[in-house]
C-alpha cells in the first residue's frame, strides 16, 4: 500500500515537472529582457504595443461571436437529438468530431475555394464577409468541445420529462429552450464557451490564411522577430487559458441548483 502511494507521488511529481518546467523556463526567460536583472520589460513592451491590443481585441470579439453562434447551433441540436432523434446521436457525434480529424488547413482551403470572390457567396470579397467566414470556421473548430460539453450537461437532466412537464404547462419550444434547457446546461455551455475562447485566442491557420488581424498570427510574427516578448506572450496566453478554466470552476460552484444531485 505504501509502495503504491510512493509511486503515485513519483508519477504525480514527474507530471508536474513535465508540465511546469518548460513554463517556468519560459517565464524566467521572459523576465531577462533587461541585462543582468529580472524585470517585466518584455511584458510592458507587449502590453504597450498597439498591435497587441488590436489583435487581442479582434480575437476577443471574434471569440465572443463564435461562442454565440456555437451556443445557438449546438444547444437546440443536442436537445433535439436527445429528445426526438436519439438513434441519430452516434451520427451527430461523428460529425462533431470531424474537425478533430480534418486538419484546419484543409478546412480553410475548402472555405477559400467555396467562398472566394468568384463564387455564389463571395464572403472573402470584404473584410466583414471574411470576419463572418472566420467566425463560422471557428464555430466548426470548436464544435467537438462545445457539443460534448452541452451533451454532457443535457445528460445530467431528465430532458424528456422536463420538456413534457413544461409542455403540459403551456410552454412553447422557444420558452423550453431559453428558460428551461439553457439555464440547466449553463455550466456546461460556459465550459464549452471558455474552451472555444481559448481555441480562438490562440488559433493561427484560419486567421493567417484568411488574412485577418487576429492574435494567433501576431504571436507567430512576434516569435519570428523578437527575443523576450514571445516568451512573455506565451505566458500571457497560458494565463488566459488558466483564467478560463478557473472561470469554469467558479461558474460550477456559483450555480445554486447544481449543488446537489438531481
Amino acid at each position: 500500500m505504501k509502495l503504491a502511494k510512493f509511486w503515485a507521488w513519483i508519477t504525480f511529481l514527474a507530471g508536474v515537472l513535465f508540465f511546469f518546467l518548460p513554463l517556468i523556463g519560459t517565464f524566467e526567460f521572459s523576465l531577462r529582457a533587461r541585462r543582468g536583472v529580472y524585470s517585466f520589460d518584455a511584458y510592458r513592451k507587449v502590453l504597450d504595443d498597439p498591435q497587441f491590443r488590436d489583435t487581442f481585441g479582434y480575437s476577443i470579439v471574434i471569440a465572443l461571436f463564435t461562442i454565440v453562434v456555437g451556443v445557438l447551433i449546438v444547444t437546440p441540436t443536442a436537445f433535439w437529438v436527445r429528445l426526438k432523434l436519439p438513434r441519430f446521436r452516434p451520427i451527430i457525434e461523428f460529425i462533431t468530431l470531424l474537425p478533430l480529424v480534418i486538419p484546419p488547413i484543409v478546412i480553410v482551403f475548402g472555405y477559400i475555394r467555396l467562398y472566394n470572390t468568384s463564387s455564389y457567396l463571395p464572403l472573402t470579397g470584404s473584410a466583414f464577409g471574411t470576419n463572418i467566414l472566420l467566425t463560422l470556421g471557428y464555430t466548426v473548430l470548436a464544435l467537438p468541445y462545445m457539443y460534448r460539453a452541452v451533451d454532457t450537461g443535457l445528460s445530467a437532466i431528465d430532458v424528456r420529462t422536463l420538456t413534457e412537464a413544461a409542455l403540459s404547462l403551456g410552454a412553447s419550444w422557444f420558452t423550453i429552450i431559453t428558460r428551461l434547457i439553457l439555464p440547466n446546461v449553463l455550466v456546461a455551455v460556459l465550459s464549452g464557451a471558455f474552451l472555444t475562447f481559448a481555441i480562438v485566442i490562440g488559433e493561427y491557420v484560419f486567421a493567417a490564411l484568411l488574412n485577418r488581424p487576429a492574435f494567433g498570427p501576431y504571436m507567430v510574427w512576434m516569435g519570428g522577430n523578437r527575443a523576450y516578448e514571445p516568451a512573455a506572450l506565451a505566458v500571457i496566453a497560458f494565463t488566459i487559458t488558466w483564467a478560463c478554466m478557473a472561470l469554469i470552476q467558479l461558474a460550477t460552484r456559483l450555480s445554486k441548483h447544481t449543488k446537489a444531485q438531481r
Partner: protein
Amino acid sequence: MSFLEIQHLEKTFGPLRVVKDFSLKIEKGEFVSFLGPSGCGKTTVLRMVAGFETPTSGVIQIEGKNLVGLRPNQRKIGMVFQSYALFPNLTVAQNVAFGLKVAGLPRAESDSRVAEMLRLIGLPDLGARYPFQLSGGQQQRVALARALAVRPRVLLLDEPLSALDAKIRVSLREEIRQIQRELGITTIFVTHDQEEALSISDRVVVMNGGIAEQVGVPYEVYNRPTTRFVANFVGTLNNFTGTVVDAAAGVVSLEGVAITLPRGRLAEVKGKEVALAIRPESVHLGNGHGRDVVLPAIIEEVHFLGSVIRVRAKAAGTSVSLDIFNRTDLPPPPEGSSAELSFAAQDLIVLQDQTQ
C-alpha cells in the same frame, strides 16, 4: 355527454398493439384510476390524453371537443410525473409560477395564485427553496401545485407516488384525494398499486394487454371481478375448480359438497367445470353461523402480520389463504393441525375467461 370521452382509442408501436379499442367516459370532477401491471397500456393512454403520444386511431374529447391533433401545450391538461420533473434551476415558487408566467398572467395575480397553491399543498413557507432542498414527498407536492396552478381542465397523475416510501405514499395519496375533492378537478391517476387505486378512486379501470378489463367503483371491482385477470390482479384470491350440477338452480359441487350460488351467477358458464374463487377475508376458521360451505383442512403455514394473521391451509385439494384478526384470547392454530374452513356461498366469485 360526459366531460371527458375516450372512444375506440388504439395505439401501435411498429407491430406492437399496446392499446386496443379503449373506450371510457369520465364525468366532471371524477377521480378515475387506471390500474394494471407494467406494459398494460395505462401510461400510453394517459400520454395520449396529455398529447405526448399520437393515437393510431380513436377520439379523445373534452366537453365534446376532439383533442387529437392538438399539441400538449394547447390542451390545458395538467400532468404530474413519477420523477416529479421539477425544474432544477427554479425555486419552488418559480416552479409553481412557471405555467402562469407562460400564460402571461399579471405578476400580482400570479404571486397570489402561487401563495394559494403553496398553502393548498401545505408548504407555504418553502417558496424560496430549490427542488434539491426538498424531500421526495415535498417535491411531489410542489409538482402537484405546479400542475394545478394553471387551473387545468383535467389533471393526469402518472404513478406520482411510486418513487416515495410507504408511509409518505399513504399520507400523500390522501392529500391528493382531498385536494382533488376541494378543487373538483377531473383526475386520471395511473398506478400499478391496487391499494392506492381502490382507496382513493371514484372508479377504477383495470387494464390488461391494452384493453380495459373492467371499469367500476372500487367495491364492485374488488368484490365482483368480471374476468379472471381482474380477480387475480386486484387483491388475493383462493381458486377452486367446481363441477356444475344444475346451472339453472346455481348448484355446483366442490369436493363433494353441494353449494347453491346466488341466482344468475352461473348464467354465463359454459361446460361442466367452473372456476370459483374466494377472498381470504371471506374464509373463516371453524364452522360458524351463516356459512353454508364447510371444508376440512390442514393448517400449513401461519404468518403473523400484526393486527391480522394470515393462515394458509390445504383444503379441497388446493392451498387456501385466510385472514383472521389477531386476538389475545385466541391464539393462532398450530401448523400441521386439522381444522375446518367455512364460508358463505354468496361470497364465491365465478370467474369468466379473459376478454380479448
